[in-house]
C-alpha cells in the first residue's frame, strides 16, 4: 500500500525478461517471473529475476509455484541478500489473471511490485512500467484492486554502466554485433566523442556571436566553467610533467618487452 516508493531496476533484469520472452512456449502469449532484489528506505531495487512457467487460458491461470520456490532457493545460495520483491509480466495490459498472480506474490513479500515490459512494442515503444496494487472500492460491498504506477528509474552499478555502453554499441549496426576493441581504441573513441561535443559548442558560440541565437547567461556560465577547468600551467612546467610521465610509461613498456623477450629466448633454448 506504500505510495511513496521509488523503483530502481537494473538493466540486467530487463535483458533477462526480454530473453525469456523470446524463449517462450509456442502457445504462450506472455511470460511471467519473479523479481528479486532489496528494499531500503522506500526504494525498491530490483537486481535479479527468473522465469516461472505458467499456463493461461480464458478462464483460469496456473502458475508452477513449486518451481518458483525451488528457483528462489537456488538463487538464495548464491546471493542470500536477495529477496522476492515482486513479479514481472510481458505485454502491456493488466488482466484479471494478473490480479490473481499478484495476490500470490503479495503473500510472499510486504509490498510487491508488478513490472510490465511491453514486448509487443505497442506505440513503437517498449514501455517498462512498475505498479503497486491497492484495494479500492466500497468497504463491505464490491471491492477491487487498483494498480497504481510507480516512478521507475534505471540504476547502474559502475561496471554495469560500462557493460551496457559496450553491449548497446551495436544498436545501429545491421548485424547488431559489437567487437571487442583494445584500450587505445577506446581512448580514441572517447576523444572522437569529445571532439563532437566540442564542435557542437563551437557552433553554438559562433551562432551567438553572429547574432543567430539569443545568448543565454546560464549557458555562458557553463562555458566559462568549462574553460576554467583546463588547468593553467606554464608551458615549460607542463612539458616537464608530460615528458616525465611519458618516460615512465615508455620505460615500463621497455621493461615488460624485455621480460617477454627473455622468456621467448629461454623457451627457444629449452627446446634445443
Amino acid at each position: 500500500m506504500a505510495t511513496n516508493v521509488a523503483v530502481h531496476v537494473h538493466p540486467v533484469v530487463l535483458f533477462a525478461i526480454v530473453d525469456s520472452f523470446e524463449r517462450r512456449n509456442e502457445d504462450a502469449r506472455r511470460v511471467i517471473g519473479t523479481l528479486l532484489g532489496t528494499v531500503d528506505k522506500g526504494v525498491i531495487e530490483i537486481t535479479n529475476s527468473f522465469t516461472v512457467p505458467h499456463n493461461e487460458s480464458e478462464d483460469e491461470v496456473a502458475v508452477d509455484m513449486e518451481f518458483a520456490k525451488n528457483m528462489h532457493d537456488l538463487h538464495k545460495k548464491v546471493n542470500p541478500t536477495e529477496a522476492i520483491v515482486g513479479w514481472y509480466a510481458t505485454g502491456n495490459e493488466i488482466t484479471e489473471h494478473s490480479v490473481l498472480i499478484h495476490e500470490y506474490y503479495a503473500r510472499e513479500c510486504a509490498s510487491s511490485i508488478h513490472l510490465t515490459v511491453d514486448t509487443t512494442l505497442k506505440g513503437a515503444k517498449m514501455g517498462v512500467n512498475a505498479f503497486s496494487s491497492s484495494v479500492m472500492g466500497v468497504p463491505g460491498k464490491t471491492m477491487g484492486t487498483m494498480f497504481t504506477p510507480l516512478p521507475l528509474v534505471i540504476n547502474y552499478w559502475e561496471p554495469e554502466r560500462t557493460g551496457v555502453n559496450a553491449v548497446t554499441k551495436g544498436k545501429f549496426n545491421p548485424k547488431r554485433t559489437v567487437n571487442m576493441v583494445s584500450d587505445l581504441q577506446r581512448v580514441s573513441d572517447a576523444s572522437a566523442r569529445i571532439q563532437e561535443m566540442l564542435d557542437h559548442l563551437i557552433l553554438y558560440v559562433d551562432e551567438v556571436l553572429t547574432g543567430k541565437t539569443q545568448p543565454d547567461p546560464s549557458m555562458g556560465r557553463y562555458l566559462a566553467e568549462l574553460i576554467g577547468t583546463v588547468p593553467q600551467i606554464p608551458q615549460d612546467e607542463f612539458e616537464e610533467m608530460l615528458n616525465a610521465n611519458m618516460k615512465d610509461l615508455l620505460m615500463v613498456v621497455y621493461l615488460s618487452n624485455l621480460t617477454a623477450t627473455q622468456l621467448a629466448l629461454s623457451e627457444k633454448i629449452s627446446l634445443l
Partner: protein
Amino acid sequence: MASGRGSRRTTESEATVQYVQLDGLVVLNIIKHCEEVGSELSQGVLLGLLIGNCLEITNCFPFPRNALDDPDFDEMQYQMEMMRHLRYVNIDHLHVGWYQSTFFGGFVSKALMDSQFQYQHSLDESVVLIYDPLKTTQGYLSVKAYRLTPQTMAIYETMDFSPENIKQTKMAFSKIFDEVPVVIKNSHLVNALCLEIEEIGPPTEKYSFLDLATSSVLEKNIKLLMDTVDELSQDSNKFHNHYRQVAKQNQAKQQYVQKRHQENAARTAKGEVALPEEDINKLFKPLLPPSRLDNLLLSGQIKSYCEQINQYSSQGLGKLFFAEGLQDKKQVGTI
C-alpha cells in the same frame, strides 16, 4: 541436432571454435555476479550451443561462493538442479564453458588449467571466459575467451611434465592457451530494449578512464609482474640445482665404476675372486627431474601481465598526447 553435434566433435579442435558470440545478457549477468561478490574470485557456468565455427553463449548462472568451503554442499547437484529448471523454461541447458573473474590479468594457475582440462575433455569446444571487474569499472569492458591448445590437452592427459616429455612435444608457455575472439551480439528485440533504455535512463558516459593518473594501477601491475618473475627465478634455480646434482651424481658413479674395475683388476692379478658388479642404481638413487609445470604456468602468467602492461601503457600514452593537444589549444587561445 544431437547427431550433428556428435559428428562435429570428431573434427580438428583448432577448426571448431573460431570465435565466441556472447549475448548481451551474459555480459550483464557476469558483471552483476562479480559486482555482488566483491573482491573475491567468482565463478559460474556458461550455457549455449555450438553453431558451425562459432560458439554461442546465450545464458549463464553463477556458482555460490561458499561452495568451496561448505563440505555438505554438492556442486554437481546444484548444477544439475539449476540446469533442469532452466531447461524447463526453454533456456539452453548445454554446458559450453565457465567463467572466472580475475584481477590485473592474474589467472594462469593450476586450478584453472585443471578445470578447463576437464571441461574440454568432456566437451571439446569449451571456453573459459576471463572477466576483469577492475578494468570494467574503470571503463574498459574486459572479457576474454581462452581455450587450451591441443598440445596442452595432450600433455595433461599424461600428466607428465618432465623436461624430456616437454622437449618431445615441443611444449612452450606461449602455446598453453589459445585466445578466441569475442563478439557481443543482440537479438532484434533486445536491440529495441537497448534503444528504450537510452530513453528511460541512459548510462551517462563517465569518462573517468580518461583520467591521467595512471601510476597506481601501473604500480600494482608491475608489482605483480615482479613477484611472478621472482617465483620463476626460484623455480629456475631449483631446475639448475637439479642438473648440477645429476652431474655430480654421474661423476660419482663414474668414479665408483673406475674404482671397482681397478680393484677387480688388482684382485684377478692376485688370483682372487673378482668382486661382483653391484647394481649401480641401488647405490646411487636416480634423481627425479623436477616438473616443468610451474615454469610453464609462471611464464604464461608473466606473458599475460606483460600484455596487460603494454595495453595499459599504450592507452596512457594516448591520453598524454590528448592532454598535450588540449594545452596547445589553450595556448593558442590566450594569444
